[in-house]
């Protein structure tokens, strides 16, 4: 059997407040896949990501990253994962270049390799001219680029992108799409969460819907639409969140 890039079984996360953010999630992403995770705000997407990367501790269930248990073998599991979080969580005290260099250092990359990799990613993400600037002086778009570059610094085999295009302009969004597709073709497995359905449709091989802490549908966008008996992914999503009346086809019919 092929080793999965990410294998999640019966994952439960209950916060001390009693809120159950994940209620028995099972998910498998194959190596080299570009997988989309869609769901409304508060559905459990970020909690699932946090459990995978060690930022949250699962209450029950298991997570394996390329065969490494995310709890008992967390070092190897985290080494394989790169996380570009939704929040712009940059260290204000560091420059752009230091941000990349320190991150790679946290993952044990030797100095010479760090230097080369930093140069390469600064170039790829058009950040070379900003290399000596403190992160807090960057624009929102630049911060987003830097967060993505940081996630890529240690050459992760699984890249997790938590709403990477939220609030970025069209140009940067398309740039990011091209980059994501390119590194996926080069072999990096990608887990993408997004609120832009066309983004998921265009980029992802498979998509899962998550709602109220449970996976409620999984497959290609065509399969998901068929499952909900609708024409496209957007309508399937609206069916999931119980807002079918917002369907564009419905609005068009009403308008006519």
């Amino acid at each position, binding site marked *: 059997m092929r080793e999965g890039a990410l294998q999640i079984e019966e994952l439960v996360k209950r916060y001390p407040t009693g809120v159950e953010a994940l209620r028995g999630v099972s998910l498998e992403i194959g190596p080299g896949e570009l997988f989309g995770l869609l769901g409304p705000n508060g559905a459990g997407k970020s909690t699932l990501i946090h459990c995978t990367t060690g930022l949250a501790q699962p209450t029950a269930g298991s997570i394996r990253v390329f065969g490494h248990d995310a709890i008992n073998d967390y070092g190897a599991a985290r080494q394989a994962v790169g996380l570009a979080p939704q*929040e712009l969580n940059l260290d204000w005290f560091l420059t752009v270049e230091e941000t990349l260099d320190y991150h790679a250092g946290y993952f044990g990359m030797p100095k010479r390799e760090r230097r080369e990799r930093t140069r390469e990613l600064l170039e790829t993400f058009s950040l070379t001219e900003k290399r000596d600037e403190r992160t807090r002086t960057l624009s929102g778009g630049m911060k987003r680029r830097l967060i993505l570059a940081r996630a890529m610094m240690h050459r992760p085999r699984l890249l997790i992108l938590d709403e990477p295009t939220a609030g970025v302009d069209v140009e940067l969004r398309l740039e990011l799409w091209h980059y994501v597709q390119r590194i996926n073709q080069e072999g990096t497995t990608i887990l993408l969460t997004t609120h832009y359905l066309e983004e998921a449709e265009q980029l992802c091989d498979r998509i899962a819907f998550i709602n109220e802490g449970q996976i409620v549908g999984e497959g290609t966008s065509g399969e998901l639409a068929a499952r909900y008996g609708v024409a496209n992914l957007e309508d399937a999503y609206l069916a999931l969140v119980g807002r079918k009346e917002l369907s564009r086809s419905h609005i068009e019919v009403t308008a006519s």
Partner: protein
Amino acid sequence: MSARQIRFSTLWRREVNRFMKIKKQTLGAPLLETFLYIMVFGAALGSRIKHLHGIDYILFVIPGLIMMAFSTNAFANNSSSILQQKFQGAIQDQLSSPASPGELLLAFSLGGFMRGLTVATLTFVVSAVLVGLPVDHLLVLVPSLFLVGFFFSQLGVLTGVRAEQFDDVAFVQTFVLQPLIFLGGVFYSAALLPQPFETLTRFDPIYYMINLVRYGFVGFTEVSIPLSLLALTGATAALFLVNLRLFTSGYKLRA
């Protein structure tokens, strides 16, 4: 260098880099504060008091000031560094790395330790040049200062991890540490205090730390050196274990 060594040195370097980037606040201000104390208590008051237990008053005060500089800076650095990173979310970068809880804890601790050591060393060098501060018992002084620095580094880490707002850090610093340090005998000898204050002073753990450092420099103490060293070692180890437990459980660091 192994991957683990690179990881640890980077984590630690980040902490030192942080306070070196804001030197005016993290090194300049505490140095100025220490020298103001030396001026006021040493030069101004010292000219009236002259000697305490047969030691020049200024030489009696400076060891306490060095200990105070080491401890407050070690504490302030770690508590604010951790809280700031929690606020920014930047701490997630370290927490999602393969670093173990022990590596993270030691790296955070060493940041404050280095800042405290830097301020204390500069104060010592200047004091040695200006007033000829002696070092009578190096073998007591070095482990005492090391333990004091490490104890307050741990306390800073604990406060930073537990804190949810800057007020929480300020509370510990202003209402707990400051009174304990000032009433621990930095500027005077507890033997001079009337009862019940003399006895109360003996319940202040910082009183023993000041005596250890003072003994290391000028050879005077009001407490047992071996017992104080033993108690400080125990307290530091206990605090380290508490912090290690918090880092391992992810308390207020991992959701």
